[in-house]
């Protein structure tokens, strides 16, 4: 599994995921779980790594082909709603193709098997239509598109507990970034399927989609050290 989320700040979104991929052969911290789709939209995946990576790459390719100058007669910007429509088809098709292919080895494989849950989160600014930040979710087996104020998915329960106690609607993107690192670090302490380098990006109107460098993430982890200690102290005071 993984931890993937999209959280809303007053001036933008913060997208986050770990990079661990777990299979029967073991774990590796090499997975790319999110990609930039265009200037102000990003996409994340969780669940089956093979399906997820293939589908998000395909979405990015398709959107960029349409908006690219080369090979397209008329250049144009692809709107958020168009990206979502493309995603409707690509996510479900890629998942079903994988199921059909895998049935060659395992005839009983069912799309609603809880071990196969795969999901996608699209987050960004809808510049051309609603002029709003939007977060959309697709999850197997139906991949019915759902709009949400925020999303925490896959290994989500520790993060949901922390969000219940630490998140405020008034937070700006800078503050949500610190919270995002807090969620990832606290979750990976407990969940063996969450770990590896943290992948975090922000989407703001001024700067669009911006992925944090490894150094930026490390700085945020260091900055959070007193918070990890303080949170533990508070829990100990109240419950220990």
């Amino acid at each position, binding site marked *: 599994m993984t931890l993937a989320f999209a959280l809303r700040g007053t001036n933008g979104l913060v997208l986050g995921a770990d990079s661990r991929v777990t299979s029967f052969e073991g774990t590796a911290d090499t997975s790319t779980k999110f990609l930039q789709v265009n200037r102000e939209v990003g996409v994340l995946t969780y669940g089956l790594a093979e399906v997820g990576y293939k589908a998000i790459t395909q979405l990015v390719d398709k959107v960029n082909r349409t908006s690219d100058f080369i090979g397209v007669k008329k250049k144009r910007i692809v709107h958020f709603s168009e990206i979502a429509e493309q995603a409707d088809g690509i996510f479900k098709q890629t998942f079903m193709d994988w199921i059909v292919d895998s049935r060659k080895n395992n005839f009983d494989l069912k799309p609603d098997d809880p071990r196969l849950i795969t999901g996608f989160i699209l987050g960004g600014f809808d510049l051309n239509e609603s002029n709003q930040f939007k977060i959309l979710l697709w999850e197997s087996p139906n991949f019915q598109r759902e709009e949400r104020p925020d999303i925490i998915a896959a*290994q989500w*329960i*520790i993060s*949901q*507990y922390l969000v*219940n*106690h*630490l998140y*405020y609607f*008034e*937070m700006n993107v800078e*503050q*949500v970034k*610190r*919270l995002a690192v*807090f969620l990832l670090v*606290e*979750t990976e*302490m*407990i*969940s063996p399927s969450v770990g590896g380098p943290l992948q975090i990006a922000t989407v703001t109107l001024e700067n669009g989609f911006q992925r944090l460098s490894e150094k930026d993430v490390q700085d945020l982890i260091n900055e959070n050290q007193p*918070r990890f200690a*303080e*949170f*533990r102290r*508070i*829990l*100990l005071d*109240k*419950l*220990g």
Partner: protein
Amino acid sequence: MGSFIGVLRVNDATIVSTDGISEAVYSPNLFRINKFNLALILDDLEAGKSFCEKYLKGFESLEGGFDTIIKEARESLENNVNDYSKKLITISFVGYETDFRERPYYALMFDGQQINDIVYPADNKVLFSINNDLGVYLTYKVYSNHMSLDKAVNLMGYITAQYNKILSIGKYVSIITISKDGLSYLDANRIRSVMSKAEEVDVDIRKNCCDFFMTEGFCK
């Protein structure tokens, strides 16, 4: 989603929490085997309950006797596989043994065809049947082997309240302690007080953590 059952072990007791059907009524997920042992029905409530009623009665005079009970339960399931052939049954057993290091937590899982045994090591202090991570996380933050029974009960109440907030496990909660004095069900008043303390702690935690990420002055 199966039943919600949480088990927390401290030095001189085991605390079990589960979702109940009504206030002050013993949860149907639990089956009292005798003074010191309890069966927790995690999956298929109906089949699990019928199995317990049929095969786990008659141990009343057996004090402790965890291993004997497990052995009998396993044999009964093995000998009557056909009665449960289309059922998925998971029953866990918790009991009091005088030696903490040897105090086991054990589960029998039957998938309709074969029996799987799950033995949790003694250093596994906490186990939740649904989304185990949150219970482990909160316990990890504050756990000590030598926690008093009262503190352990309050911790279990707090963890259960968080599961309830996030997963809506059920309106009512049953909490049972197993110590050298045997099984003890917390009465409705005590449970109300534990859950209300959990709510107070929750509010305090949110207040105390308010300035973690917010601008100075926001929380005053």
